[in-house]
Structures are given as structure tokens and as C-alpha cells.
């Protein structure tokens, strides 16, 4: 068992996984995670599948999906002077890009800074708009000819910030979306002794969620054919400007999605498990779309009853997303309760 959730999240964050590049970190991920599971199955979609079996014949299959990919960029051009142009992968917030620190995952990993025009060179009014991503240049500090030997069009670029601690149980850094939930899924599956398991559990750390289409989780789920699925992803935590009924409260436990596209019986059962095990939790309403893999996952094959359990974070899609490890541990506890629960879905 991983003694420290922060350490597990930190290790997962350190494995680069810009959407479409999820296979590059396979060895590191497998050595980190496979000790808690019976089997690792690489899926051609780039999704990493970890299986833990309950040991009973013909056991039902529970899919626990957390997307493994993170937002980032791809190099689209190498310019004179050793600068890089990029295109976004996933929903990149261009307001936070000027002066951001990045890592360029070429033939070797390079450090870079996204350029910003200093105030005294800006035209009046420039500071009120944010530059287009296509207009930004990454400064690598290399000459163009050397840079061309290290970096190619299509080389992924990610943010630099590592995981760090804030006060109490709060943490910050890049890619809490969705490494925080990957950690919750791994932790949840690993904490249940085999003899207490009611299901064979398939944890899918899935590819390409941020790029839309949920192709990674759908492909893996099609092969696995699960009887039920829980998708875990991040959601908005209340913060200045984010509030009311569109957010969860950080530190108040995982957020269960009430939605017309998810399975109501499964969601209801998870809420009952929270009450029974005294796991703090909250609900939010996502009427027609959960904004997660669940929407597509529920339609895979003959259909998969699916619920969504989210971890609230602030500053989503920046390089300093913040989360509360207590929420992540409570999500893990809920997954563990679900894995023990034979009545979860009939």
C-alpha cells in the first residue's frame, strides 16, 4: 500500500501523459501501479488496464475509469532563433500561458518558457486581451539547428509545475485533472482484500479524454465488457466566481453526479454506501452531459450502467490545479465500498 497519497499523486503527475502520448510512460506507470494488481493489460488505444480479481468464477466485472491523459501542447513548427510554435491539445486556458514554464518531451526533455511581450513593448490595450495560442513562442535557449535534432513537429509539450503542498491536506500542481482521480481509483482497488471483493475490478487509466470523443475508455471498455462502470474525474470546486449549484465544496467529499445520462440506480446505491460507511459526499446536477467519459462509456456495446464520482478542484486546466487529499481518500474509500458490494448492481 502506498503510504502517502501525496506521494502517489506526485509520482503519477511526473509521468508525462499529454493526450495521445499515454503509452510513453508505460514502464514507469506499470512499475508504480502493478504491485497492487493481478494483471496489466496494455490496450491498443493507449489506455492502461489494471485488473484485480476476486478469485470467484464468473464474477461480475466492475470498470473503474479515470482518464490518465493531461492537457498540453504539440510542437507545430520550429522557427529561426530556436523558438517553438505549438497547438493546444485539450482545452488549454490561453490566459495562463504567457511566461508559463514548460517541458518539451523531445529526444531529450528540454525546459522552456513561453514568451511574453514585456509591458513597455506592448501597444495600448494589448494587456486587456490574451494572445492566441498560435501566436505564442516557446523559448528553449537552443540554436535552431541543435533544436531541430532534439525536437520534431508533433513533439509533446507539458507544464512544468510539480505537485506541492499547501496548508493542511491541500495540494497543488499540474494535472490534478486527472491524476488525483487515477490515485483514488488505484488506492480504492488496492485497499480491498481479495476475499472481500464482490467483483473483478478493471481500473482503466484511459487515453485521450481531454481530446474529446472518449476513444480510449470506449475502446478498452468494449473489450472488457463490464457489468457496471464508475467514472472518476475532477469537477469544479467553489471559488471566487465559481459557486452556487454549479460547483462542489472542496473538502466535503467526492461529488456524485445526478444526470439523465448516467444510471440512477447505480448512483443511488453509491450514495447509500457513503451513508453506511460514513463517507462524506455531495451531489451535483449535470442534466444532459456529465462532461466526462461517462457519457460515451454508457453507450459502449449493449450499454454499460455508469455513475460518475468526481473530486472537486479549483483552477481547472491551469498548471496549478488545487485539490484536497481528504476528498481523494474519501473517493477511494467509496470505490473500496463499491468493490465489496455485491448488491451494487443487478
Amino acid at each position: 500500500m502506498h503510504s502517502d497519497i501525496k506521494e502517489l499523486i506526485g509520482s503519477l503527475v511526473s509521468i508525462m501523459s499529454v493526450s495521445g502520448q499515454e503509452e510513453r510512460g508505460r514502464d514507469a506507470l506499470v512499475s508504480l501501479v502493478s504491485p497492487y494488481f493481478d494483471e496489466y493489460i496494455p490496450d491498443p488505444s493507449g489506455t492502461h488496464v489494471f485488473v484485480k480479481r476476486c478469485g470467484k468464477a464468473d464474477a461480475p466485472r466492475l470498470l473503474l475509469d479515470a482518464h490518465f491523459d493531461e492537457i498540453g501542447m504539440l510542437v507545430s513548427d520550429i522557427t529561426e532563433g530556436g523558438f517553438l510554435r505549438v497547438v493546444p491539445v485539450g482545452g488549454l486556458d490561453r490566459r495562463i500561458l504567457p511566461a508559463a514554464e514548460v517541458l518539451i518531451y523531445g529526444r531529450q526533455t528540454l525546459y522552456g518558457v513561453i514568451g511574453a511581450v514585456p509591458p513597455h513593448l506592448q501597444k495600448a490595450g494589448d494587456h486587456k486581451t490574451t494572445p492566441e495560442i498560435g501566436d505564442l513562442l516557446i523559448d528553449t535557449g537552443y540554436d535552431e539547428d541543435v533544436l531541430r535534432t532534439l525536437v520534431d513537429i508533433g513533439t509533446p509539450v507539458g507544464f512544468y509545475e510539480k505537485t506541492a503542498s499547501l496548508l493542511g491536506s491541500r495540494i497543488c500542481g499540474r494535472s490534478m485533472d486527472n491524476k488525483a482521480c487515477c490515485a483514488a481509483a488505484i488506492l480504492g482497488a488496492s485497499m480491498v482484500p481479495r476475499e472481500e471483493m464482490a467483483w473483478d475490478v478493471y481500473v482503466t487509466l484511459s487515453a485521450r479524454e481531454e481530446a474529446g470523443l472518449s476513444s480510449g475508455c470506449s475502446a478498452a471498455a468494449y473489450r472488457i465488457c463490464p457489468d457496471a462502470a464508475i467514472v472518476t474525474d475532477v469537477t469544479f470546486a467553489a471559488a471566487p466566481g465559481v459557486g452556487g449549484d454549479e460547483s462542489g465544496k472542496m473538502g466535503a467529499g467526492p461529488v456524485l453526479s445526478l444526470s439523465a445520462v448516467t444510471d440512477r440506480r447505480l448512483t443511488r446505491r453509491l450514495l447509500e454506501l457513503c451513508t453506511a460507511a460514513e463517507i462524506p459526499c455531495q451531489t451535483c446536477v449535470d442534466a444532459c452531459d456529465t462532461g466526462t467519459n461517462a457519457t460515451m462509456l454508457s453507450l459502449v456495446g449493449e450499454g454499460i450502467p455508469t455513475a460518475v464520482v468526481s473530486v472537486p478542484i479549483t483552477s481547472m486546466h491551469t498548471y496549478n490545479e488545487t485539490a484536497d487529499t481528504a476528498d481523494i481518500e474519501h473517493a477511494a474509500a467509496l470505490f473500496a465500498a463499491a468493490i465489496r458490494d455485491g448488491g451494487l448492481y443487478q
Partner: protein
Amino acid sequence: MNNTWTTLSLLEQLSCTFGPSGCEDAVAEQIRSVIAPYCDEFLPDSMGGVIARIRGTGEESGEGIAPRRLMLSCHMDEVGFMVRSITEEGLLKISSMCGSDTRVLAGRRVLVGDETRQVRGVFGVKPLHLIKSDDRGRAVDMDDMYVDIGASSREEAEKSVHTGDFGTFESDYVVFGQEGRYIKGKALDDRLGCAVLCSVMRQVYQADTRPGCDLYFAFTCREELGISGARTAAHKIDPDYAIVLEATAAGDIAGTSPYKQVAHLGRGGAVSLMDRSTIYDRPFTDWILETAREREIPCQIKQYVSGGNDAGHIHKSRAGIRCAAISAPARYIHTASNVVAKSDIAAIEQLVLAVIDRLCGGKERMN
């Protein structure tokens, strides 16, 4: 339920049942009990839909086409909304589902709850007198709308309603117009498809001859959300042909350019050639049109490219499925007051029966 129902009495009953997208259980339960005597078996559906099978003879029969498995599909859900939160004052803030037009919500009577219990409410709006004159012509913003169920505090409201509850229109089933030719109600889109399929099942099951192919009747969920149970049903059934029974927005009202009228009430089912979700299989569609012509069943071609339906999911499932769609022209679709013509419902039922009859080898056995 006894078996003395007619297509229209069943439509009335289904129309008045609570079944917004994602909360179709009450409709599903009714349909299951109605059709249980008229099918060989039900197939389980993890999305909450109803799939029933009438087995064929297994012989190759059919005139023109000879499917292995024919899927007939309609959707059970209706447009609706979800309760997002409850205010201090006991009013419900809501999230619209499936593109409801706020202009048709303001002032409306609604039901809120789930398949087992509902309470009545009203879509409240700020009185006209208090709105700046400039804003009077403006549609109400969804965020400014609320449902008043008569509670005076959050605590009181929470005794009857929970966040995540569903809501839809409350609207009577009314027969009106010259010689009572029209029906007004909520959810006629697509409960009329459901009622027609139930009636078709009864007649096919009780007939002396059976088609060679297996018939699958799918009553699906969540069509109005665009992510449909028809997709998973089609994957399960694996048909080679499918017919979707739907309601389509009729624009045959004064002031609409003729080319935008789509379909006309009273001229029979509208057969689609193309919409936003599907380009329909041409030979199959032509075969259906030919069937209507030969049997002298009123039928029209949908004359505008608009909307989409379950066919969009069905035709792309597995290795591809030949699809056709027959829709009842319906005015004021997605409001509390859908208007359809009785004669169109009858014509669609006749057409579907004629199609199945031709699959039986063309033996006349109807009436």
C-alpha cells in the same frame, strides 16, 4: 391492463405518463404490461429500454427484400428538465434538457419528481409590469426561470422534491378540430410511435401468418438527449433493417414558406430521405414508398432537411444497418401542446403493417 385498448386510447394513456429523458421507467412499465401477451419474449436492456421479440418462421419470405432481423424502433422519453437546486425561498432552479425553448416554458404547469411520485409546479416569471419595456420582447433566460411548487421554504420543498429530480409538462390530452381530427397533448413525440408499435405487435402476434424474419420492437430511452438507447439496442439486436417511428416538426402553418413546411398534417406518415443525423437507405425507403402506393395508404415525403432521430445511432451501429424513418407530422413539437392528426397515426400503423405483410410474402391478411 386489459386488451380492449385501441391505438388512440393507449396513446392518451402513454401521453399522460411521466417520462422525461433519463426517467422513462413508468412509461416502460406500462408498455411492458401492454405488450407482454403479444410477443415471444423480452430482451434485457441495460439502458432501461424495452426490447421485445416476435419470432419469425425462419423461412426466407418477403417481397422485394428479405431481412434476417427487422428492428422497429420508437422512443419513450419526452423533453424535460432537471432540478438543479432549491432556493432558500423554496423555489426550484432547473437545468433544461434537450433544447427546450424557454419561451414555451414560461407560465407553464409542470410535474416534478420521478417515476414513482410527482408534485405539481408552475414555471414562474417576473410579472410583465415589473419588466423594463425594452426587455418585454426578449425571451426569458433559463437562469432567471424557476419552478414554484407552493413551498414557502427550502425545508418544505425538500419534503417533496430533491435536487436531481426530473420534470416535464403537465398537459391534458385533448381531441379537437373539425370532426375531432386533431389531438393535442404533451409527449406525443414519440408516444404515438410507442402506441403504434404496441398496436402493430398485437395484430402481428394474433395473425395467422408470420414473417420469415424475427421482428424486434425497441422502445428506447434518452432520444431527446441525442445520446440514445437506440444505439445500444441496435448493437444488441444486430438487425439488418430498421424502421424508426417518430414525430417530425410540421411547419404547415400560415406564414411559413412552402419549402420550409417539412410535412403536412393529414397527408399520412412522412418518410425521410435525409436529415441531420442520417442519409436513409434509398432502396429500402423506395420500397416503403412503393408499399404505401400499392396499398393506397396515405404517405408523404419529408420535404426539408432538419432534425435527427434514433436512426442516426442505429444506422451506424455494428457493421451498418439499412434504415428508414416514418414520422407523424406534429405541430409545436417540444412544447406542452404537440398537435397531430388522428388520420396520420392510423396511416402510419397501416403502413407498418403493410410492410410486415409484404415481408410475410405479400399474403393479404389484414382487416
